């Protein structure tokens, strides 16, 4: 076993991202054999995390951190304890074989490099998720798994079904991720800690907080969507559109367990409350039953496995929700067992599909002679899934029955749910692992034969691990299950596992009932399938269709809003913009009752009065003007008068600019008017004029109020003193305004002139569009007219 090296953890988490960068080139050179060297990456990561096992099993934890965004307290920090170690080992260990399997499964595929690249990206994100200590970092990795899952499900992006499934998974898990972010922010707010390890040390702070319920619901929102709990379970079966290596890795062994991981992670600080012990078992139990029943109905190997994955996740949530030590131990064991057998079975299903050309269970049979190694792996994994000895699945089932049977409340109900769920699980295990291989040989689309080593090495190793873990039950419990249980409880836990039950106890009898029930149901599988199918047909509606309806509703609402707010009518835009501006200026002082005092009337000289009179005259002329052109010019008069006032009160720069702006405004407005063929007069009815008049007056009044308020608040002279003092001394300029623009605040100006350029481009584009439309209309009339109209477009 390698020694523990916490400092290398950051490298270990980032290594898959590096592998993602080189994978396409490796595949270009080595073809599908690139999987062999590439699989070394997850293998070395596995070795790295294996180094923690002995320390962690003795109760040690490791943290390692590196600064990332120190201003916001975000750091690349990692926390290694029993929970993260087992998860990291599963991810990197199964990941090693998934990479190999992907090498064989997509052999010769033109995009194999890209596929491996996506897989590595996901692996890095998932490793980061389970080891991250910083909550924000955890969230980022969480969303990265959603995004990489989107890429992988939509890998075959030319098929509409793949695209829909990818988008659905992204929307459901990404939406849940946002809830999780909100939950994390609340946790940070309440505990004042951003590192998970410190939050876990906060004891009852979160449980005792008034905001416990929102935190609980938001974290649940993230966990339930990610771990496909009813009613969010629908995206997981649809995700089977992805190539099989993805289904085996993301949608059974790792990513969908992220939600369970999160629940287990926060269990010490959020778990154990009444609502926790009500909501989680309820949703988990429903998910378990719905998942298994829907699985029985399927005939596609992958879909059967997918629905049992939903069911298993439900079982895990149910057990985590009991907050009972023995049930939690069952959850940990089952999680471990499930990753091994489900990953193996998915790969088997993929191999059958690959070699026999179909994965419809009704069209398969008698494959054991043609595919002996695959059959062996399938049988071993299937027995573990069925919960039969001597496999880890059996021990997990025993422990979890022990846990549910011993619950202080609801023991009977949860035990019955667990027994029915496990019996149906056995049915599926038999249907997937036994049925395709026994019976008479059936003619399959492809002539079936054993797959290459790349395809069978993964399932064989994973299913053998399931056997070995059970054979060495004591070691498994001591090294992996115990430390992980300690993380869940928040206090040290000792786990003693035995493969062979010492005495006849309730769990053993429950196991026998489960097996008997399962066998009976398996023999009636076809009839059961028919019954469930007819029930579903009678219900007709499901969350999957509900998702489509929600998406359609969102599209409809946004279309309505767009039509309402962006109808393409300039006048509406202007009125809306100015009405909002006016409201923003006037409402706050009105609501707070803080209008500025009326200033003392200043003494004006006669020429100042004259200039003001000109401004008022110009304004009046705008209002009474008969034609638009007169109004535009009158507005210019008012503007010039104001600019003169600036000059008189000692702001030459401002006045200078104002003159130029007024001049150009008049020119541009006049040009726009002629250009857009506006009628020379304003023909709007009085009502419309009144509305715009009120809006204009309120904006004007709002700005006047703001200016008055600004001048009445005490003047902070520090900035002007600074500029007066330094503009000559360090910027070598006497014109302070200019020095500020080009030197002190030069970076702002750079942004502003970039905006000016973009505005110019946008206006140019708008004018072009208009010209082209005209050209189009004109060309329909006569060629000559079209020529003259298109000319401006050509003449740059």
């Amino acid at each position, binding site marked *: 076993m390698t020694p523990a090296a916490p400092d290398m953890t950051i490298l270990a988490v980032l290594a898959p991202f590096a592998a993602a960068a080189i994978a396409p080139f490796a595949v270009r050179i080595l073809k599908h054999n690139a999987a062999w060297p590439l699989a070394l990456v997850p293998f070395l990561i596995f070795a790295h995390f294996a180094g923690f096992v002995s320390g962690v099993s003795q109760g040690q934890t490791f943290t390692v951190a590196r600064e990332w965004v120190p201003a916001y307290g975000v750091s690349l920090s990692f926390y290694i304890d029993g929970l993260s170690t087992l998860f990291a080992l599963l991810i990197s260990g199964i990941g090693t074989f998934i990479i190999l399997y992907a090498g064989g499964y997509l052999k010769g595929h033109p995009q194999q490099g890209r596929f491996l690249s996506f897989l590595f990206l996901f692996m890095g994100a998932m490793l980061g998720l389970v080891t991250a200590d910083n909550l924000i970092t955890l969230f980022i990795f969480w969303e990265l798994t959603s995004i990489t899952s989107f890429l992988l499900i939509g890998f075959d992006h030319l098929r509409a079904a793949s695209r829909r499934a990818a988008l659905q998974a992204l929307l459901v898990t990404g939406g849940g991720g946002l809830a999780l972010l909100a939950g994390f922010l609340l946790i940070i707010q309440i505990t004042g800690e951003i590192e998970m390890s410190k939050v876990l040390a906060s004891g009852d702070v979160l449980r005792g907080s008034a905001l416990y319920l929102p935190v609980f619901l938001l974290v649940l929102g993230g966990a339930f969507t990610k771990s496909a709990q009813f009613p969010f379970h629908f995206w997981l079966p649809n995700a089977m559109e992805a190539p099989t290596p993805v289904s085996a890795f993301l949608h059974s062994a790792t990513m969908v367990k992220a939600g369970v991981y999160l629940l287990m992670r926060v269990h010490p600080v959020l778990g154990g409350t009444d609502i926790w012990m009500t909501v989680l078992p309820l949703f988990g139990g429903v998910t378990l039953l719905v998942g298994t029943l829907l699985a029985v109905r399927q005939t596609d190997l992958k879909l059967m496995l997918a629905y049992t994955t939903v069911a298993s996740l439900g079982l895990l949530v149910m057990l985590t929700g009991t907050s009972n030590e023995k049930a939690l131990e069952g959850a940990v064991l089952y999680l471990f067992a499930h990753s091994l057998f489900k990953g193996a079975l998915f790969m088997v299903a993929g191999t059958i599909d690959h070699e026999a050309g179909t994965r419809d269970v009704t069209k398969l049979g008698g494959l054991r002679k043609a595919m002996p190694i695959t059959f062996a792996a399938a049988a071993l994994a299937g027995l573990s899934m069925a919960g039969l000895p001597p496999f880890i699945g059996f021990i997990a089932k025993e422990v979890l029955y022990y846990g549910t049977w011993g619950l202080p409340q609801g023991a009977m109900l949860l035990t019955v749910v667990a027994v029915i769920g496990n019996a149906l699980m056995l049915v599926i295990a038999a249907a997937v692992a036994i049925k395709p291989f026994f019976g008479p040989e059936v003619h399959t689309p492809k002539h079936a034969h054993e797959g290459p080593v790349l395809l069978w090495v993964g399932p064989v190793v994973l299913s053998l691990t399931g056997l070995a873990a059970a054979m060495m039950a004591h070691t498994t419990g001591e090294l992996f299950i115990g430390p992980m249980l300690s993380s869940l409880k928040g206090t040290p836990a000792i786990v003693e596992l035995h493969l062979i039950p010492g005495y006849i106890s309730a769990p053993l009898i429950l196991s026998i009932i489960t097996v008997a029930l399962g066998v009976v149901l398996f023999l009636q599988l076809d009839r059961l399938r028919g019954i469930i199918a007819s029930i579903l047909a009678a219900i007709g509606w499901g969350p999957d269709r509900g998702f489509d309806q929600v998406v359609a509703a969102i599209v409809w609402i946004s279309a309505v809003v767009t039509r309402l707010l962006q109808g393409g009518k300039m006048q509406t835009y202007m009125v809306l913009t100015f009405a909002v501006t006016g409201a923003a200026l006037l409402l706050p002082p009105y609501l707070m009752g803080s209008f500025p005092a009326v200033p003392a009337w200043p003494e004006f000289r006669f020429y100042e009065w004259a200039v003001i009179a000109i401004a008022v005259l110009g304004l009046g002329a705008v209002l009474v003007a008969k034609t638009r052109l007169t109004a535009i010019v009158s507005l210019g008069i008012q503007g010039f008068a104001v600019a003169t006032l600036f000059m008189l009160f000692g702001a*030459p*720069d401002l006045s*200078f*600019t104002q003159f*130029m*702006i007024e*001049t*150009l405004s008049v*020119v*541009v407005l006049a*040009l*726009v008017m*002629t*250009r857009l063929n506006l009628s020379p007069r304003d023909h709007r009815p009085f009502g419309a004029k009144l509305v715009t008049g009120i809006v204009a007056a309120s904006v004007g009044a709002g700005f006047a109020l703001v200016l008055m308020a600004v001048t009445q608040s005490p003047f902070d002279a520090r900035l002007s003193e600074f500029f007066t003092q330094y503009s000559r001394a360090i*910027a*070598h*300029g*006497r*014109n302070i*305004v*200019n*020095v500020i*623009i*080009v*030197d002190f605040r*030069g*970076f702002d*100006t*750079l942004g502003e*002139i*970039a905006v*000016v*350029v973009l*505005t*110019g*481009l946008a*206006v*140019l584009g708008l*004018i*072009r569009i208009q*010209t082209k439309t005209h050209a189009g209309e004109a060309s329909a009339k006569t060629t000559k007219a079209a020529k*003259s109209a298109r*000319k*401006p477009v050509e*003449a*740059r």
Partner: protein
Amino acid sequence: MRTVIFRTFAPFITALMVLFSIFVLLRGHNEPGGGFIGGLIAASALAIYGISAGVGPARRALKAHPMSIAAFGLLLAALSGLLSLFTRQAFMTSQWVTIDFLGVAVDLSTPMFFDIGVYLVVVGAIGSIALALEERESD
């Protein structure tokens, strides 16, 4: 708009305005003026020339498309800020050089080039909008 008087005087007015705009631009650091105002004056000059002589001649007189002038101005402004990086100072730290030109001490500085960039951006962007709007009148 195209009276004989306007057509005759417009080129002179334009020339004077452009000259004045450059004067305003360069004196901006010490007296009222600067790139923004200079640019606005020059843009007005361009608009006047476009109205009097037609957009085609105005564009030909410019040689380059006004939008490329604006883009060049933006590039110049950004590059002038980069010079300070060679002296291991922060982006946009102003650099000053005084050179002796025919016996007159001339201050050259990065803010000056920055201001020229602002000028070009304003001329280019406003000018191209004005010319584009005038376009149909010139047919």
